[in-house]
């Protein structure tokens, strides 16, 4: 590795990191938060067997899980303007990621809700609670606990998938790397560098996932040490 390449990597690091702060991280956070809102609504509608809405939810999940993410991005960014719906690249990407990820997470949430034993609901009725009170205090918290590991995996995949947004001109980390390669003709070094940065981000997310999984496991473990509410681990 000579001085020229070192210079490219150092300059590239700054640019890629800036792109991550301006685009990749916000896209992941906003996209995933919206996805969770969609997922919880779609899962609850199915769990509660609400007519019509339940069918709409099934169709939505069917479409967004059954078509490629890249095609969805192209359709939204290049296709929708033909119908007069024009969006800037970033909000367009947020929307597509939220809808796509929402479909997957809705299935995760639905199966987590269905995994809560029927007896929990019955016990709630028997102490006088109504459906909404039981859902809020008992069923949804338990389902979120069950869904936490798969949902964490979804965030990590989504972080990596945001690189596809570069294809619709979103100036994310990968776009920034492509530009540097275009200028310097060093694809091996620069793409390795961007890969490494993605790796660092997903590793950080994995650690966060482990930490919270431990804390959440309070009521799933017999160990009294972490069992007491709130736990005693460092933050």
């Amino acid at each position, binding site marked *: 590795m000579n001085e020229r390449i070192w210079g490219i990597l150092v300059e590239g690091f700054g640019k890629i990191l800036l792109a991550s702060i301006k685009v990749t991280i916000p896209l992941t956070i906003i996209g995933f938060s919206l996805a969770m809102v969609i997922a919880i609504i779609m899962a609850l509608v199915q769990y509660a067997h609400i007519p019509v809405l339940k069918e709409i939810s099934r169709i939505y999940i069917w479409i967004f899980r059954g078509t490629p993410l890249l095609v969805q991005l192209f359709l939204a960014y290049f296709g929708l303007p033909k119908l007069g719906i024009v969006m800037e690249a970033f909000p367009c990407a947020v929307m597509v990621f939220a809808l796509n990820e929402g479909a997957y997470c809705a299935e995760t949430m639905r199966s987590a809700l269905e995994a809560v034993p029927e007896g929990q609901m019955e016990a*709630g009725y028997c*102490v006088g*609670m109504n459906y909404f009170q039981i859902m809020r205090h008992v069923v949804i918290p338990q389902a979120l606990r069950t869904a936490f590991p798969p949902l964490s995996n979804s965030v990590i995949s989504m972080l990596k998938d945001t690189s596809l947004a570069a294809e619709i001109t979103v100036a994310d980390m990968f776009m920034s790397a492509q530009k540097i390669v275009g200028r310097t003709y060093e694809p091996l070094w620069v793409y390795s560098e961007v890969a490494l940065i993605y790796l660092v981000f997903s590793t950080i997310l994995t650690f966060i996932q482990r930490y919270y999984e431990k804390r959440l496991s309070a009521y799933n473990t017999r160990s009294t040490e972490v069992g007491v509410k709130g736990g005693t681990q460092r933050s």
Partner: protein
Amino acid sequence: MSMMEIKGICKSFGKAQVLKDIDINVEKGDVIAILGPSGSGKTTLLRCINFLEKPDKGSMEFDGVRYDLEHIKRKDIAMIRKKTAFVFQSYNLFANKTALENVTLGLTSARKMGKAEAKEIGMRMLEKVGLAEFKDHYPIQLSGGQQQRVAIARALATDPEIIYFDEPTSALDPELIGEVLLVIRKLAEDGMTMLVVTHEMNFAENVSNKVVFMEDGQLIEKAASKEFFANPKEERAKAFIKNIRSQHDA
């Protein structure tokens, strides 16, 4: 004075008629043991009178008001449920709540009681079942017997007029049965009205004041406990008692 009277409850699952015209009259302070072989409809009966199943027919008088069970309104169900409590065979404690939270949730959530007041009641109930020091334990950290005692504390917290027990000790290891029965016996001494499905014959004979014997969805015999055990009228009841006693002694 009768506090609850059910009349003519019928229930079918598909083609199988599981409850055939059941009548039971409960007076204040009664402890009624419901006996009968497995599959005779005991659980279904309790579930019907607490609306966990919808009866096909029948009526219920509760606190002097009669309700047609086939057409009972949601708000009447909610009102009756607030005056009753249920203890399940499999405890059904809220898995994401501590022992204390299990006991107080019905107060804070369903009855909008303040946290402090609910906590005070909750602690009193946990003390009653001897589990005050386990207040911060989650259900999974408790033994079966402890879980069932928390479930009883949860049932007591809402100050019910009647408590239904569905085989409260059947899921327990033999050495844990005693602690749960002791709690129920104390409630009986305090005058709590209870309907208890059980296979514990000593409990039925010595704690309950009335016995109801069911078989095949029918109510075969109703009697005062002492009388029932000393001299069961129905052949089937006789055979049942003999059979279950011999299993127990084996």
